[in-house]
């Protein structure tokens, strides 16, 4: 891929702008887009290579003594730690429950590791943990082990939480990002951009008021309902950092297929849209914490969609496009006025703009 080459001089022409220097980690490396992918593919994957890791799903499906287990881990570093619609604790439980759910597993057990910054108000910690207790109960899981560390003031953003989850696959069949096939339908469970814009609304220098709340929610019962409708669900992903655009590209890339999406079918709350418009952001790249993208066989799509809409977390579920054999690994979007463009992976963080 051209991006791998470290070209500093273009032959025959001089250019005023040298390459950016990635000798240090920048925030973009954590944003879920291209930079994150690069980090995984160039540093982590080669060092830890095995068939399971190489599938690069959000969870690992393991065979242990005849049982199929799903295993996952995720870190939560969001700032501010309390935001409209949730907090870092709730996010940490739901995020890991969802990573398990995306394999079709029933989430069972969670481990939680806390890194606390010296000076964090004990009341805040209590608030976070109480929120986690509620999330654990709602998700029907058990938090069975954990760890706590404290770092010096200034070395950690109030609190970081890492949760590890274990789930059991009770159904046969395989749900994985590399299973999308031409003809499959692409389903989305609801409105996009709510979580990312809820966070953005609290950022100093960018604040705005409005009804935007994080959509953080545990999706495993929605997934269970979908699997009841049909086993022909090929891929499931929750579009967190990098948004729906990144998730679609990941699936297209792993499966070696193309996709065609109609932007007009994608539900966006009016308030999220307003916020995105003023900051110059595209909702397709904004993080979600209570939504999923499903790639399902065409004959199963209607039944699955029907089940989704009956579930409280899938009321606004819709079909947003389909998988095609043409233009493999590219996601094409039909625009509001009927034109066409390519939906690329996000570079680094999506930044507000005035131009």
């Amino acid at each position, binding site marked *: 891929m051209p991006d791998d080459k470290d070209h500093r001089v273009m032959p025959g022409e001089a250019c005023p702008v040298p390459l950016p220097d990635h000798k240090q980690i920048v925030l973009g490396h954590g944003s879920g887009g291209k930079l994150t992918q690069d980090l995984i593919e160039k540093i982590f994957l080669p060092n830890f290579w095995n068939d399971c890791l190489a599938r690069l799903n959000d969870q690992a499906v393991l065979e242990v003594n005849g049982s199929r287990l799903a295993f996952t881990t995720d870190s939560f570093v969001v700032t501010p730690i309390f935001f409209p619609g949730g907090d870092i604790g709730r996010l940490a439980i739901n995020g890991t429950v969802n990573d398990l759910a995306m394999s079709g597993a029933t989430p069972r057990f969670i481990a939680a590791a806390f890194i606390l910054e010296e000076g964090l108000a004990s009341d805040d910690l209590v608030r976070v943990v109480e929120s986690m207790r509620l999330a654990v109960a709602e998700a029907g899981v058990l938090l069975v082990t954990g760890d706590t560390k404290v770092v010096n003031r200034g070395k950690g953003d109030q609190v970081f939480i890492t949760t590890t989850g274990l789930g059991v696959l009770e159904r046969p069949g395989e749900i994985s990002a590399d299973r999308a096939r031409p003809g499959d339908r692409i389903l989305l469970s*609801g409105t996009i951009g709510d979580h990312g814009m809820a966070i953005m609304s609290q950022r100093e220098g960018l*604040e705005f*008021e409005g009804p935007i709340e994080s959509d953080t929610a545990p999706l495993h019962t929605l997934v269970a309902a979908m699997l009841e409708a049909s086993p022909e669900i090929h891929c499931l992903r929750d579009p967190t950092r990098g948004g729906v655009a990144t998730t679609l590209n990941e699936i297209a890339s792993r499966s070696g297929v193309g996709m065609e999406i109609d932007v*007009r079918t994608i539900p966006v709350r*009016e308030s999220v849209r307003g916020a995105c418009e003023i900051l110059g952001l595209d909702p397709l790249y904004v993080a979600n914490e209570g939504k999923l993208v499903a790639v399902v066989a065409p004959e199963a799509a209607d039944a699955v969609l029907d089940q989704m809409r009956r579930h409280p977390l899938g009321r606004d579920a819709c079909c947003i496009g389909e998988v095609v054999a043409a233009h493999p690994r590219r996601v094409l979007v039909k625009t509001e006025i009927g034109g066409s463009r390519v939906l690329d992976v996000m570079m680094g963080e999506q930044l507000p703009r005035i131009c």
Partner: protein
Amino acid sequence: MCLGIPGQVVSLEDAGGLRMGKVQFGGVVREVCLEYVPEVALGDYVIVHAGFAISPVDEEEAARTYQLLEEMGQLTELEETAADPGFGQGDRPSDKPS
């Protein structure tokens, strides 16, 4: 250049001699400097760029030209009865939590 979005003025205030206000954009409200649109009143629409209202939206002008465009659009709809398969303007989900 230059991102400017239309919004509706929902409140006005004087902030230390600077004319400020709150402008609503599709359900989201942001503080905006209204110093450059002294004629604008509550309920009026303005174009906002980098936190400043740079121009009022001339509603008459907008209505006039939009009517022309609408008529054109209706012509198109009459002509294209078969139309685009299945790609209508979907409902915008309301802002009530699900």
